[in-house]
Every structure is written in structure tokens, then in C-alpha cells.
């Protein structure tokens, strides 16, 4: 494991803690041992002195015994015997004491044994003296002198042994002192070092802990902020969230969940029953069933149900939920969204759709009326006129003949109107199939359609090569046909009409006239002619149904042709504009998107 990550892990703190405790125990143990050693040392010193003192004491008593012996020899006083007994007892006492103090030392005990046997010998000498009677005073005799000096050698030996014992004690003391001194020197160093390490560890842990604390604080802040933002988004989005801990069966509602039902946040302790009592009775069983399914199926599509708020208002809720497993706990998380507005809007749209559909049906019915019922009487009128002209024209007066030809013209005009109207309504119908088509072909077909007129007026049509495009073929052909027809119809008298058709590719950025969101690349097709033109102020009006700029006696027409053009262009998501000036010809500009 990397050192840095080890430092960051919570184990580090635990290890530092355990280590610190161990060090404190270690220091305590060392100190205890040190104090023990100190006490021990001073005890030893005391002991050594005691031994010396007791030995000296004992020597004094032995000396006293010797003196008493001499006194006895000199005075032959029987009471001295008693004093000697006391001295002996004191010597024994001192001996016992020394024995006791030097218990642990083998060499000292050896010496003590020697000492004891010397003292015994001393006793023997004294006792042999005491048994004699010096009352007749043989002072100055050799025997007396021998008795007098008899203890001297023993005394000398005793002194020697005692001195040896004292020397041993002293050397022992010296040795102990030096060990003690060594201990005194090194121990504080160890303690100091361990304390230093402990300090370093503690500082490290402090740094880490404060860092962790800061992290926790910032996480806490982030959590607070995100909590607040989710609260806000719940209010804005009109939704609430809830949780069910499947192990403890405890519910938690977000603040907005309460608001959705019309309560203040945390108005009651979150639980299922208080929520379910708001649900519309007809939806109750369904909600219960789906909630149960959520627990076992884990992921479920959202569903919609109705509730009554606390104020009795009916709202539509959409809910969804799923089970998540987090640290061995299974929690069902769910959201509740108030979709009342959406549902109402949907209902409105459906209603409008219904109206549109019925309108559409009416339009279709009108279409049928126009195509069939209106045509029928007209056809009969025309047939009767044709019969009248064939059979009875000669029987009519001149004015009668004129009226009849007027009636015939009017009927013909009505036929054209009906046909054009039918065509217009057909371009609105849904039967449009887009297919990739060569526009050149469509243009040729359109020229064929208008061939008679072109020939009659000796019109010239120049065109650039057009592309292939995804279009409704018959409509685009109609568009070309209508534009050609329009240009020739409004041509100048006695000047052969010339129509130029050009094409360029443009995009929305380079051409300010088009402003499309879905398409950016367009074909721009321009039809320009040398006709009579019109005033620019009518440029938009000419595309509306039944708009004519000229009297029908001057120029025939129904005012439907350009309206059909506009409709076709709109079907193709394109644009059509007109530009003109009186006597300077007209220009029709078409924009067709490259991709539908």
C-alpha cells in the first residue's frame, strides 16, 4: 500500500492510538523499574553501612570481653564473670544481626563462618581463664602472663576477618554505584526519545484529524447545498420523493411530497396509510397493487393515478419507483410528480385533434361536393348549351346568340374555377409520398403540359441543370407548370416571353431571407421573366387564394395558381418569394431544403 493512502486511511489513526498507549505503558514500566533500582541501590548502601557498623560493634564487644577477662585475672572479682556473660550475649546478638544482613552474599557467609569459629575459640580461651582462681595473685608469673596474652592472637585474626568483610561490602557498594550511575545516564535518553516519537505521532494524527474534520465539514456543506438544490428542483419540477426501508418498514417523505398533498413539510410522520387515504377511490386498488409489484419487480414503468389534496382539489400524479440495495439494506425509492397540467393540456390537445379531424372530414366532404355534386349541374348546363348551339342557334335572334355565347363562356370559367379549387384542395391532402426525383424531368413534364401555350406565344425557356431531390413529384411538376403558365400569361404583348431558370446552393447563414431551424442547406431556384411585372407591394398578396391583380377580361385566371405554388412549397418545408417592378418582369425565388 502506498504511504500516502495509508496515511489517509482510518487505520492509521487506530495504529497511532494503539502505539501511543503502548509507549505510555513502556515509559511507565521504565520509570517504575528506575525507581525500583534507585530504592534498591540506597537499600544496598544502607546495608553495607549496617554491616560495617554491626561488625565494628561486634569487635568492640569482643574487645570488652577481652578487657573483662584481663580485669578478672587482675582482680579475681567474681562479678566480672557476670559481665562477661552479658558481653557474650551481646556478641551473639551482633553476630546474628550480621548474619541476617549478609544473607544473600556467599563470600560474606564464608567469612562469617570463619569469624564464628574464631569467636568460639575466643570463648573457649575466656572460659578456661574463668575456671581458674587468681585470688592468690600470682602476678608476674609466666602462666599468668600467658593467660593475660592468650586472646591476643585470636583478637588479631578476628580483626583481620572483620576488615576483609568490610572491604568486600565496600567494593560491592562501589560496583552497585557504577551500575546505578550508568542507569541514571541512559534511561532519560530512552524516555526522551520515545516521548519525541510519541509527540511526532500525535502531531501527525492531529494534522490528519483536523484535515478529516475539514473534509467532513466541506462534504457536509456540499450535502447541504445539494439537498437544498434538490429541494428547489422538487418545487420547480412539481415532484416529490419518498423512500421505504424494506427491512425496517420505515417511510421517509421529501418536503415537497407533503406539499403535493397540500400539507406543510413534515406535517405528519411519513407512513403509507396517511398517503393512501388521499388517493381517488377508483385508483386505490391499482396503486396498492403496483406498489407491491415495485417491491418485487425492482424496475417498473411509471403509472398515473388521481388524488384529492387536503383542500379537496383533484390532482393527477405520476409515480415510479425501484428498489436499491445499499450496504445490505433494501430501500424502495420513489418519485411522485404532479402531472395535472400535462394531463389537462393533453386532454385539450386531444379535444383540438378531434375538432381538427372533424374539420378535416368536413373539408373532405366539401371536396366531394366540389368534385361531384357541383360538377354535375355544371356539366348538364354545358351539355344543354352544346345541344342548343348545335341544334337551335339559327333560330335565335342575334342578341340571343350573343347571350348564349356569354352563358357558355361563364360556364367554362366556372369549370376552370372548380378544377383549380379541386387541385388546390388536393395539394393539402395527406397523400404525399416523397421520393428522390430528377427535377429536370419534372421541368420537362411541366413544359409538355404547357406546350400549347409555349408554342402559341413562342416562349423561350432557358434552364440550368437541376439536381435530384427528395420531393413529391406531381406537386413539384405542378409548381413548375404553374410558374411557367403564370409567366407566359402575364407576358408583354408582341414580345415573345423568355423565362430563365437558375439554381444555386445556399445555407441559412449566408441568406437572410431564410430562417429555418431544422434545415440549413437549401437549393435556391429562380424563375425570372420579361413579362409585365407588378408592383412590389403586392409581392406577398399574390400568393393568397383568389387574389388577382388584373381584370379577368384582360388576363384569364382564377387567382388560385400561385396559392397552389405556395402550398406546394410549404409542403416541402421551403420558401417562395416574388420580386417585381411594373414592365420590368417578375422574379419568383424558391428555396427547397436539400434534405427533408
Amino acid at each position: 500500500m502506498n504511504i500516502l493512502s495509508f496515511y489517509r486511511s482510518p487505520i492509521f489513526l487506530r495504529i497511532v492510538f494503539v502505539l501511543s498507549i503502548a509507549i505510555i505503558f513502556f515509559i511507565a514500566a521504565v520509570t517504575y523499574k528506575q525507581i525500583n533500582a534507585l530504592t534498591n541501590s540506597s537499600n544496598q548502601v544502607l546495608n553495607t553501612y549496617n554491616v560495617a557498623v554491626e561488625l565494628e560493634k561486634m569487635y568492640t564487644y569482643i574487645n570488652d570481653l577481652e578487657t573483662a577477662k584481663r580485669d578478672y585475672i587482675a582482680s579475681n572479682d567474681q562479678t566480672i564473670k557476670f559481665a562477661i556473660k552479658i558481653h557474650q550475649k551481646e556478641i551473639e546478638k551482633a553476630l546474628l544481626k550480621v548474619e541476617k544482613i549478609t544473607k544473600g552474599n556467599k563470600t560474606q557467609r564464608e567469612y562469617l563462618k570463619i569469624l564464628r569459629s574464631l569467636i568460639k575459640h575466643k570463648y573457649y580461651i575466656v572460659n578456661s581463664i574463668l575456671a581458674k582462681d587468681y585470688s592468690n595473685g600470682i602476678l608476674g608469673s609466666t602462666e599468668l602472663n600467658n593467660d593475660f596474652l592468650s586472646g591476643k592472637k585470636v583478637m588479631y585474626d578476628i580483626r583481620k576477618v572483620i576488615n576483609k568483610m568490610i572491604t568486600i561490602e565496600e567494593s560491592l557498594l562501589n560496583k552497585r554505584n557504577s551500575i546505578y550511575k550508568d542507569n541514571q545516564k541512559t534511561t532519560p535518553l530512552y524516555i526522551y526519545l520515545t516521548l519525541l516519537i510519541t509527540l511526532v505521532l500525535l502531531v501527525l494524527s492531529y494534522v490528519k484529524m483536523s484535515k478529516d474534520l475539514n473534509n467532513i465539514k466541506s462534504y457536509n456543506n456540499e450535502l447541504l447545498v445539494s439537498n437544498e438544490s434538490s429541494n428547489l428542483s422538487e418545487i420547480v419540477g412539481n415532484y416529490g420523493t419518498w423512500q421505504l426501508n424494506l427491512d425496517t418498514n420505515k417511510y421517509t417523505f421529501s418536503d415537497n411530497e407533503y406539499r403535493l398533498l397540500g400539507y406543510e413539510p413534515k406535517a405528519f410522520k411519513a407512513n403509507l396509510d396517511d398517503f393512501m387515504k388521499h388517493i381517488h377511490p377508483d385508483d386505490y386498488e391499482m396503486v396498492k397493487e403496483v406498489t407491491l409489484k415495485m417491491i418485487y419487480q425492482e424496475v417498473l414503468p411509471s403509472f398515473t393515478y388521481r388524488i384529492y389534496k387536503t383542500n379537496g382539489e383533484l390532482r393527477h400524479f405520476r409515480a415510479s419507483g425501484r428498489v436499491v440495495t445499499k450496504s445490505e439494506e433494501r430501500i424502495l425509492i420513489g418519485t411522485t410528480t404532479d402531472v395535472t397540467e400535462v394531463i389537462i393540456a393533453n386532454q385539450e390537445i386531444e379535444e383540438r385533434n378531434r375538432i381538427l379531424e372533424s374539420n378535416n372530414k368536413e373539408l373532405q366532404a366539401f371536396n366531394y361536393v366540389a368534385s361531384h355534386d357541383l360538377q354535375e349541374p355544371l356539366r348538364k348546363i354545358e351539355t344543354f348549351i352544346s345541344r342548343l348551339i348545335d341544334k337551335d342557334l339559327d333560330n335565335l335572334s342575334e342578341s340571343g346568340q350573343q347571350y348564349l355565347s356569354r352563358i357558355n363562356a361563364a360556364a367554362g370559367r366556372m369549370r376552370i374555377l372548380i378544377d383549380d379549387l379541386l387541385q388546390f384542395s388536393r395539394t393539402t391532402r395527406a397523400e404525399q409520398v416523397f421520393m428522390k426525383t430528377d427535377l429536370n424531368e419534372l421541368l420537362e413534364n411541366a413544359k409538355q403540359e404547357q406546350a400549347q401555350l409555349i408554342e402559341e406565344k413562342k416562349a423561350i425557356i432557358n434552364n440550368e441543370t437541376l439536381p435530384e431531390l427528395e420531393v413529391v413529384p406531381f406537386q413539384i411538376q405542378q409548381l413548375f407548370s404553374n410558374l411557367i403558365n403564370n409567366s407566359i400569361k402575364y407576358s408583354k404583348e408582341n414580345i415573345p416571353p423568355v423565362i430563365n431558370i437558375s439554381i444555386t446552393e445556399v445555407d441559412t447563414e449566408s441568406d437572410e431571407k431564410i430562417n429555418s431551424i431544422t434545415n440549413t442547406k437549401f437549393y435556391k431556384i429562380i424563375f425570372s421573366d420579361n413579362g409585365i411585372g407588378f408592383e412590389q407591394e403586392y409581392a406577398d398578396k399574390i400568393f393568397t387564394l383568389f387574389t388577382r391583380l388584373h381584370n379577368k377580361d384582360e388576363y384569364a385566371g382564377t387567382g388560385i395558381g400561385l396559392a397552389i405554388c405556395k402550398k406546394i412549397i410549404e409542403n416541402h418545408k421551403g420558401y417562395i418569394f416574388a420580386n417585381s417592378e411594373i414592365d420590368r418582369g417578375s422574379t419568383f425565388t424558391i428555396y427547397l431544403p436539400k434534405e427533408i
Partner: protein
Amino acid sequence: MQKEYIHIVLADDDEDDRLFFTDAFSELKMSTKVQTYNDGVALMDYLNQEDAILPNVLFLDLNMPRKSGIECLQEIKSNSKFDNIAIAIYSTSSSEEHIEETFVLGANIYIKKPNDFNALKKVLSDVITINWQYHTSGLNKENFLLRM
């Protein structure tokens, strides 16, 4: 019995159209016998008589009360007794739906009623003089609609 004339039947609810129709044939001076009926029910009643003389060519208007031309067409085509009758649809409408439907149901030709009497005479004479044998065997949508 050897027939010397072509037997023609028209079912159309419109009185004017029936008049144009009979006038056109009388002016054509062909040896034809023309019978007209006011609607689909009257037509089928006639055709279903046991001793009825079945027409060579039957003209059917589509939009008729009580029984429409489409219904008559279906009935006729489902009865093998009428297999030899050539059926011409004779209608004001020239809508694609009607043309498609009657073609599928087995009509032989579709005529849009012209708005000129001379044109009517021409189209009727064309229909009568068609080599029906050829027209029925080569069922073809291209020549189904008789254009003027």
C-alpha cells in the same frame, strides 16, 4: 334467336342524363336497343327476371339512391349468369378511388360523363364499337379509363 341489334341498358337516377343518353344513341343511328332504369334496385329487378333479355353492354352510374352502382357491380360479378355482360361505369366523378375500386371489382371500362353532347356521342359510339373480346381478355388498367 339471332339478335340484330346491340342491347344496351343504363342505370342512372338522373333524368337529364338518361335523356342525353337515349338522345345520343338515337342520333348515332346504330342498330341499338336502349333501356334505362332509375336506380340500382330497378336494374337488378329486371336483370333477375328469369326471362330477361340480358344486355350486351350495361352502363352503371355510381351514385344512385337505394342501390349504388358499386353494389350492382358486386352483385352482377358474383352471379355467373351475367358473365357475358360488358360493364361500363358511367359517372360524373373521375376520382382515383372510384376508378381503382371499380377496376378491382371487375368493371370493363370507366367513362367520365362528358360536358359536351358531341363528345358524349363520340364516347358512346366508341364504347359500342370496341372489340369487347379483346378488351375483356386483356384486362389492363391503362385502357380502363376511356379518355376524351
